[in-house]
């Protein structure tokens, strides 16, 4: 076998001398200035479940997409049965027996569930026509094997996230895959759905399937997997048997530094209530959500993907309409569905997806920061470029933004610096309440700590912060209180002293994990 980039990066010996079914050898991949993977090696053996651990932004999803034929490595090789292969497209990887369940379900909303499973591989009758009856029958069999009650003929539009995930799993099953890759398949599943999924995966593994499993729930890694590879900031850290490792060992490999440095939480003085949400309901999305955020406080909103956290944030800020309930900022009630009113009342929302919702990607830094306060930048009827630039420079310095010129387009900045621009854009409106959705998703560890320091500083200065995060260590490290949502309801409020991974996850999964 060809030696990977560094001798020490060899991911351990095979259990029985057979070459790995699928492997990466010294693979590197960069997107623009961001090095997503650096000389990473990984061996997947038949009959073994392999975990991939690492923080958000460690390069796990890039690795998955490299194995799936979506990305081509800049350097290094993908090996199939010990032989180098080049997957030119996802179709090539599928041909080779690699099935992938992505983090975000990839559905065709307008097609039926059965078609979603069999697209491109529909069972055929005479003249290569699609045999619909056979297709629906086989989909029904798959659902039976998974133990779920889904109608193969219903359209995929309107399926819940969990059901969509199950369809994805049925799709992978239907391929008789030699390699099954699962990128956080359990994030949206409830306890017994997870158990059922694990039974299926274990059965597949015993039949000789190689499994790559990604999860933020460490317990699941310990339950399902024999071996674990850890990535940090795109680099390979370790590949080792799971047996003999502890949670702390794994976290230390993932984080690689003291948690205290990553989460510089300042002691703050808690002031009066800045944001008060009362019995807020949006039908079918979230129900009866009440909470308060005080000045100087960082309150985390935790829960699984799809629990309705971002939706609450969107409704509070007025992007979506709510059906019942009240939102008060500094004691003043907000009209529903009016972001303009929310902004002038002192609310700011930093959305989850900064590329889509937070920034105008090909506009300059100064324009992006200036856009929230065009009124203040006006000199007569025209917008003053000088005022815009002054304001942008002021915030760039305060946020320690790394940039060459303020007139540069924001899409040349790294993820972390883009996030700072979004922050600057909203902080320049001088809000009383900052709602920030996934503040450090896809941001490298160094910048992450800076964003945390910033949030902490802002709270200390009297801002009320509501932070939505799927990153548990972040929630535990930064929040004064943790609110937990499950399936559209607020199910727990845990003060900082009692917040642990276990207590938060238990509440988030409905007490079943």
């Amino acid at each position, binding site marked *: 076998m060809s030696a990977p980039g560094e001798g020490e990066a060899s991911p351990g010996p095979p259990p029985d001398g057979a070459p790995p079914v699928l492997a990466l050898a010294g693979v590197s991949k960069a997107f623009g200035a961001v090095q997503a993977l650096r000389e990473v090696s990984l061996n997947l053996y038949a009959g073994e479940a392999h975990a991939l651990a690492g923080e958000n932004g460690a390069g796990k999803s890039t690795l998955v997409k490299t194995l799936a034929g979506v990305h081509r490595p800049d350097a290094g090789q993908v090996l199939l049965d010990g032989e180098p292969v080049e997957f030119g497209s*996802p179709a090539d990887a599928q041909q080779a027996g690699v099935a992938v369940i992505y983090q975000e379900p990839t*559905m065709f909303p307008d*097609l039926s569930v059965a078609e979603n499973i069999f697209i491109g591989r529909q069972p055929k009758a005479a003249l290569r026509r699609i045999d619909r009856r056979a297709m629906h029958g086989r989909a029904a069999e798959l659902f039976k094997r998974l133990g779920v009650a889904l109608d193969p003929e219903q359209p995929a539009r309107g399926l819940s996230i969990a*059901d969509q995930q199950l369809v994805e799993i049925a799709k992978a099953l239907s391929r008789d895959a030699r390699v099954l890759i699962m990128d956080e398949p359990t994030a949206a599943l409830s306890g017994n759905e997870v158990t059922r999924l694990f039974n299926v995966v274990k059965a597949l593994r015993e039949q000789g399937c190689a499994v790559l499993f990604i999860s933020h729930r460490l317990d699941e890694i310990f339950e399902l997997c024999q071996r674990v590879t850890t990535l940090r900031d795109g680099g390979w850290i370790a590949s080792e048997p799971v047996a003999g490792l502890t949670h702390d060992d794994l976290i230390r490999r993932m984080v690689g530094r003291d948690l205290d440095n990553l989460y510089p939480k300042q002691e703050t003085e808690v002031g009066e209530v800045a944001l008060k949400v009362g019995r807020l309901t949006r039908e079918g999305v979230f129900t009866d959500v009440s909470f308060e955020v005080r000045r100087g406080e960082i309150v985390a909103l935790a829960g699984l993907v799809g629990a309705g956290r971002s939706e609450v944030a969107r409704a509070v800020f007025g992007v979506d309409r709510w059906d019942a309930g009240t939102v008060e900022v500094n004691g003043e009630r907000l009209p529903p569905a009016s972001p303009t009113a929310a902004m002038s009342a002192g609310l700011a929302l930093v959305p989850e997806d900064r590329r889509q919702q937070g920034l105008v990607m090909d506009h300059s830094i100064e324009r992006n920061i200036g856009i929230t306060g065009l009124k203040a930048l006006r000199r007569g009827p025209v917008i003053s470029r000088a005022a815009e630039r002054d304001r942008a420079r002021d915030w760039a310095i305060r946020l320690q933004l790394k940039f060459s010129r303020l007139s540069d387009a924001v899409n040349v900045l790294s993820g972390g610096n883009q996030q700072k621009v979004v922050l600057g854009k909203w902080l320049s409106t001088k809000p009383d309440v900052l709602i920030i959705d996934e503040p450090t998703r896809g941001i490298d560890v160094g910048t992450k700590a800076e964003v945390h320091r910033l949030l902490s500083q802002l709270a200390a200065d009297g801002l009320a912060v509501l932070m939505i995060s799927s990153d548990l260590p972040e929630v535990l490290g930064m929040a004064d209180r943790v609110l937990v949502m499950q399936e559209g309801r607020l199910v727990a409020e845990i003060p900082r002293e009692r917040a642990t991974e276990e207590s938060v996850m238990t509440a988030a999964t409905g007490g079943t994990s």
Partner: protein
Amino acid sequence: MSTVTAGRSTRNLVDLVFRARELSIVAALAVLVIVTVGVNGNFLSEQGVKDIFLNASILVLLAVGQSVVVITRNIDLSVGSVVGLVAFTVGDFLAADHGRGIVFAVVLGVAIGALCGLVNGLLVSFGRVPALVVTLGTLYVIQGVDHYIAHGRQINAVDLPPALLSLGNGTVFGVPYLPMIAVLVMLAVGYYLRSYASGRDFYAIGSSPEAAALAGVAVRRRVMAAYLFSGALAGLAGVLWLSRFGTVVADAANGWELQVVSAVVVGGVAITGGVGTVYGAALGALLLTTITSALVVLKVSPFWQQAITGALLLLAISVDRLLALRVARVLRRRNSRHGS
């Protein structure tokens, strides 16, 4: 168990929405015909009906081709120009030598159309230029080429072989050829899109291009094929145009692209892709044509015709939007009631 029943009724609901579209076009057609006949009985004379079907045929062919493109979440605005170019060049070619066969004319026309489609397809799928811009560009370029070739001349029916003219106006058992060709093409394409794996790929691409790529669907090849097909059908329509009208100047079918797109959208093909059938699109084309004829019979000024087409288009997309919102609301409720 509740999930299955919920799923089933969801399915019925969605089915109903789609069938409702085709049914409501048929209903609109019926009302239109009844009202018009009430005013002028000649509207349903044999000649009147034949005219409507002849006039609709070419629009139906173009609408079928356009649907395939729109289903992939793209658009082809160049079809009107392609019809004009093909009608003129093929006419010119036939006029030069009467010995040239009608089969050869069709093959040439389809080939020219396919070539135009190829250019569109390459630019959209491999050049990654937005379809609207690409086909708007080729619309003008092809028109320019057409005018350059025509150089102010016109093709006259007397210069064309009689066989071609009888294709445009002849009948078998009283049924004209043109509508037969249009219906055959529609049925074949409808069957292909519904029953063949590669046909479903078009819907998958329009429904979610990202998911299609991840599922290993050959996205670029299919989009390419859609344009090639739309171009080829426009080429066929060009030959039929020539055979029907005989006299052709360079700007034949000028502006038809908008009629075609209207027919497709009125027929229930979502402009955002993934939804709709060629049958609906063909019905849409028939409805628009019938409206035109009815307005003549009803002695309404032809200026109103475009306004009515426009109003119908707005009505169709408003209804789509309302239905989509309603379905989304019902699904949201259902999910919240049954949990996941």
